[in-house]
């Protein structure tokens, strides 16, 4: 009888771990390098936007009533008399040392501004993604399990609406209905005015800070205010996540091993969650990561609508004031978070899938 030797299928354990460790190390190195290159690319783009496109960046800073002497002084102070590559190098050095320049409109360092505004955005986007995952994944799975049913159609339409409804419009309509008419939620801003400034920022996230400081009233007031913007963001991530989950699930449900499970007499619920859903958890992490990054982007619009003091609001204010340092700083921060989430979910994929190990 010829039974294949087990060694043919896989090398002995000690050999595996050595190989695996080396492969993981080189994967890590590759990850760091691409992360660095992508970040450098982002810097090149922001540099290009800030220093190359504007016909005269000096003029934008000093204004058109400046004297020639003031103009020249500003030009030298900004380093614009030096060749472009030197300017780029010093730009990169500055960014890596945390210097993003000074905001014209707030008069503070852009880096300081951003670190103050970021937590509000982070708080809202995180709540949004939680809503999106909690609803989107079960909806997508259900839609796939009952392909063709009215529920499936409804979820499909919701998914497409996620691609076709302007976020800012949905925010406005939400405010008109749930705040102005029904009074179910708080209006714009993070808190009612009379609660403002009562909680000293620790993490910058008001839900957490108020709890730490035992201000239960403020906590509930903050919840009342964050529910609507977070739900609007949540709707968009729900739409995307449900759509992707549905399509992944349909793919899995048509696989032979799902039939195998049915042949074994496994209940349909187990077929769906253990057999079809389990393999898609890994690609879903990527989808959720992308959706989360997308929410940071979407929050730019939502924050404008809800006067939410986050990075998006900061960015739009800066845009309208042609405050380039602030614009580029915000672009850099949002872009970096975007890149990191993107790449990390990519790596997670490789670490978590038994087939890729």
């Amino acid at each position, binding site marked *: 009888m010829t039974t294949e030797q087990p060694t043919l299928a896989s090398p002995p354990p000690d050999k595996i771990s050595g190989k695996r460790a080396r492969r993981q190390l080189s994967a890590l190195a590759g990850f760091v390098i691409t992360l660095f290159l992508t970040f450098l690319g982002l810097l090149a783009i922001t540099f290009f936007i800030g220093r190359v496109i504007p016909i005269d960046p000096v003029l934008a800073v000093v204004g058109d009533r400046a004297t020639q002497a003031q103009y020249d002084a500003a030009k030298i102070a900004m380093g614009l008399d030096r060749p472009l590559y030197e300017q780029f190098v010093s730009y990169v050095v500055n960014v890596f040392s945390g210097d993003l320049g000074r905001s014209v409109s707030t008069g503070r360092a852009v880096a300081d501004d951003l670190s103050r505004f970021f937590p509000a955005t982070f708080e809202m986007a995180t709540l949004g993604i939680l809503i999106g995952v909690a609803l989107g994944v079960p909806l997508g799975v259900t839609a796939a399990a009952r392909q063709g049913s009215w529920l499936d159609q409804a979820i499909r339409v919701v998914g497409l*609406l996620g*691609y076709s409804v*302007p976020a800012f*419009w949905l925010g*406005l309509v939400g*405010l*008109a209905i749930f705040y102005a008419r029904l009074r179910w939620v708080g209006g714009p801003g993070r808190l009612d005015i009379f609660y403002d400034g009562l909680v000293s920022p620790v993490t910058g996230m008001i839900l957490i800070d108020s709890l730490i400081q035992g201000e239960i009233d403020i906590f509930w007031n903050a919840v009342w205010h964050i529910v609507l913007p977070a739900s609007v963001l949540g709707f968009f991530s729900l739409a995307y996540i449900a759509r992707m989950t549905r399509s992944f699930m349909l793919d899995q449900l048509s696989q032979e091993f799902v039939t195998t499970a049915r042949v074994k007499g496994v209940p349909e619920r187990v077929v769906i969650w253990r057999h079809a859903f389990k393999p898609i958890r890994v690609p879903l992490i990527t989808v959720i990561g992308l959706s989360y990054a997308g929410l940071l982007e979407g929050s*730019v*619009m939502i924050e404008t609508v809800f006067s939410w003091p986050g990075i998006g609001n900061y960015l739009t204010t800066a845009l309208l004031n042609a405050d380039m340092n602030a*614009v580029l700083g915000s672009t850099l921060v949002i872009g970096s978070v975007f890149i990191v989430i993107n790449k990390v979910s990519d790596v997670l994929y490789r670490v978590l899938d038994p087939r890729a190990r």
Partner: protein
Amino acid sequence: MTTRDWLLADSPTSRLQANVGRAYRVFTALLRNPLSVLGGIIILVLLLTALFAPLIAPFSPTGQNLSQRLLPPSGVNWMGTDELGRDIFSRVVWGSQITLTIVALVALISAPLGLLIGAIAGYFGGWIDKILMGFTDIFLSLPKLILALAFVAALGPGINNAIIAIAITSWPAYARIARAETLTIRNAEYISAVQLAGAGPIRVIVQHILPLCTSSMIVRVTLDMAGVILTAAGLGFIGLGAQPPLPEWGAMISRGRTFILDQWWVATMPGFAIIIVSLGFCFLGDGLRDVLDPKSEGKS
């Protein structure tokens, strides 16, 4: 032989017959899907509205009439009037021209650009591929809307700059697709045959590779149009896109913001226009994908 037989012939006798036959098959397959028919109708209506805006709109899109300001929707003003007494329906109708212009120009700039970059990268491979795709990947891993905002901030507000900014941020996805397609075609026998016949790289790419990328490109561009409309509206909403008094839908919503609590129609009506048109592109794109490129479902 009927026209239908000629169209569906298994062995067409001319290139024209093959092309027309294929188009006919795609068309009939689309007709079987009610949602894509709906999408097609929506886009057709958009085209007609833009074309015949002067005939359709009952009032001037810019003519102010302060005695008629903020009127609710009625038989005369179907969508009500705005804070300057302008008829919102007329403005929405005229706004279709702006939306259509943005969509068309973005598609015309970014799709060929992406197509060309992707095909060159895929065809030549090696370091050309590495550089072009490295560049593309950097763009792809950045948030589109933010990037577009930053570009417009540098270029200055306005509808032309908005179009440029959106086009700059949209091409990388197309480059990706074109490269992938090119890689699968590049080593095909008939490409070698063309090369042996003495065709240079430009001829091979333009005449033999690009045409084969078009169907997946059409699908992708159609699906992306909803995103383009939303981004353009977003730029308009923030005040960086089309400038007043242009009846751009996003900018109209922005103006209506102040009145959202009492005169809800000022901000909501243009929003419906955006949603319907975007949905139209989504429906049509979904249908086209099912017909032309069924394998790409879910990869977006």
